[in-house]
């Protein structure tokens, strides 16, 4: 129940993010979720797209360093305290979140967040035990 995320190494310079997004856009790749982690000199662009395998080939073809990795998409109540409730469960079970970010669009009444866990399998098990819905790539057309 994991979904594929693409990480791209980017230098921290003006217009770089635009160039990468434009490259994907012109190849008809749709970005469904996105986040940028940055430092003074470089950043990591993390994206969830509709056709990850194809997108990573396009990025590499353009000379970029890009990797595929697995993240977990979780439905969160779109109401005050919704995220806190999930984080409480994870924390109580000793699951460490490396980072997280949200999907742009909604697929149900709930919000959709993606998590990078240190131990994804353990996290999935705990979330399932607590009746929290994990969304697969096919559910949101991201395979």
């Amino acid at each position, binding site marked *: 129940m994991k979904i594929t995320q693409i990480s791209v190494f*980017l230098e921290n310079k003006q217009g770089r993010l635009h160039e990468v997004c434009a490259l994907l856009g012109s190849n008809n790749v749709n970005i469904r979720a996105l986040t940028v982690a940055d430092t003074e*000199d*470089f950043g990591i662009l993390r994206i969830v797209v509709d056709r990850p395998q194809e997108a990573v080939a396009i990025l590499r073809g353009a000379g970029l*360093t890009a990797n595929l990795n697995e993240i977990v998409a979780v439905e969160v109540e779109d109401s005050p305290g919704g995220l806190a409730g999930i984080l409480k469960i994870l924390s109580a079970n000793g699951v460490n979140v*490396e980072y997280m970010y949200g999907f742009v669009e909604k697929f149900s009444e709930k919000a959709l967040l993606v998590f990078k866990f240190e131990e994804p399998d353990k996290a999935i098990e705990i979330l399932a035990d607590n009746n929290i819905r994990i969304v697969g790539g096919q559910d949101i057309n991201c395979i």
Partner: protein
Amino acid sequence: MIWNERMECMPAGRMQDLQSERLCRIVEYVYSNCRPYREKMDASGVGSRDIKGINDIAKLPFTVKDDMRRGYPFGLFCVPQEKISELHVSSGTSGDPIVVGYTAADIKLWGDVMARALCCAGAVPGDMVQVAYGYGLFTGGFGMHYGAREAGLTVIPASSGQTKRQLKLMQDFRPRILACTPSYALYMLEEARELGVDPRESSWQIGIFGAEPWSEAMRGEVEANWNMLATDIYGLSEIIGPGVAQECPHKDGLHVCWDVFYPEIIDPVSGLPVPEGTAGELVITTLTKEGMPMLRYRTRDIVSLDRGACPCGRTSPRLSKIKGRTDDMIIVRGINVFPSQIEHVLLRIEGIQPHYQIIVDRKAGKLDDLEIDVEVEEGIFFDEIKKLREIEERICREIESVLGIFVKIRLVEPKSIERSEGKARRVIDRRTV
């Protein structure tokens, strides 16, 4: 076998006497026969009377490549042209060509030192050698040829190129020895496989590879793929061509023919000798050449010298592989930095390709800053900032331990370092002094 046992195994004390005697003679000879040398010695206030032994060598002025260019074509010859038997020309990588002239005695000397080199690598009289160095103005082909003839080997003067024919000669004649550049040995590997020739079944058992710097990694690749012993040879046209130094099968440095080519290692900036065993610029004096002797010629090659005993029995000191060129050297906060030192550190870190650039900058009133940009390839790219930071810190720490100064590491995108003709520009010096 040891070709010239008397010279190659002479005890150090007796060697010093011989070198002293030869140095005094050559200085006197050069002073009397070559005007540019005479003027240089006069200008530095050194006369042949000041040179009483090999330890006085440091009193002599250096000779540099520019001296040869200024003297183009025959200015540094010590004999009239009619006494020269052979001329060779080195194109060099920059500037005017330089010309070297050999008398008949010099050609005989070349044959002797090259015979020593071939036997040092493991050749024995009767062996067959395929010489795939270029024959012509370049010294590689002819040097090997003269040595092979002197040592009683059967020579195949294949010269360079025509790889298919090289492979056919190897398969049909079965030579045991191959002499060429290390990169050509690797290139032939691909061609052999394309032709369906199994490289591990080749007749070549010993390779004598030189004329360009190569790494231990490259040696490993050549040895494993061709199933042969790969030895390193060193030489330069200005001194004689190939035959200045050669590795024995112990592969622990290149034995220098120090009875005829006297080596010194100096600090390229101060010109003073470096402490024993430390790397510095190799300076060579030819002790017996007639046509174009060289006094304290600065090779621009960075090497170290090992005077420890070698199990092969030769008493000569051994040169390390070339660690760099003084041409590429930069001085940062008074410390000499060679791009190759940085390259070595990077190659030790798993997953890193040696795609880097060194940027030296000086902000007003501040010390020089050294920044090294390293391209991030899949091998070192992780989805976590923390891990990328760790890589930066590791490179930084390891370079600091080698150079003794702090460097800033910047991770950059692949191919973002400017390349010209496939080669990256290694150093950008933005200092305005």
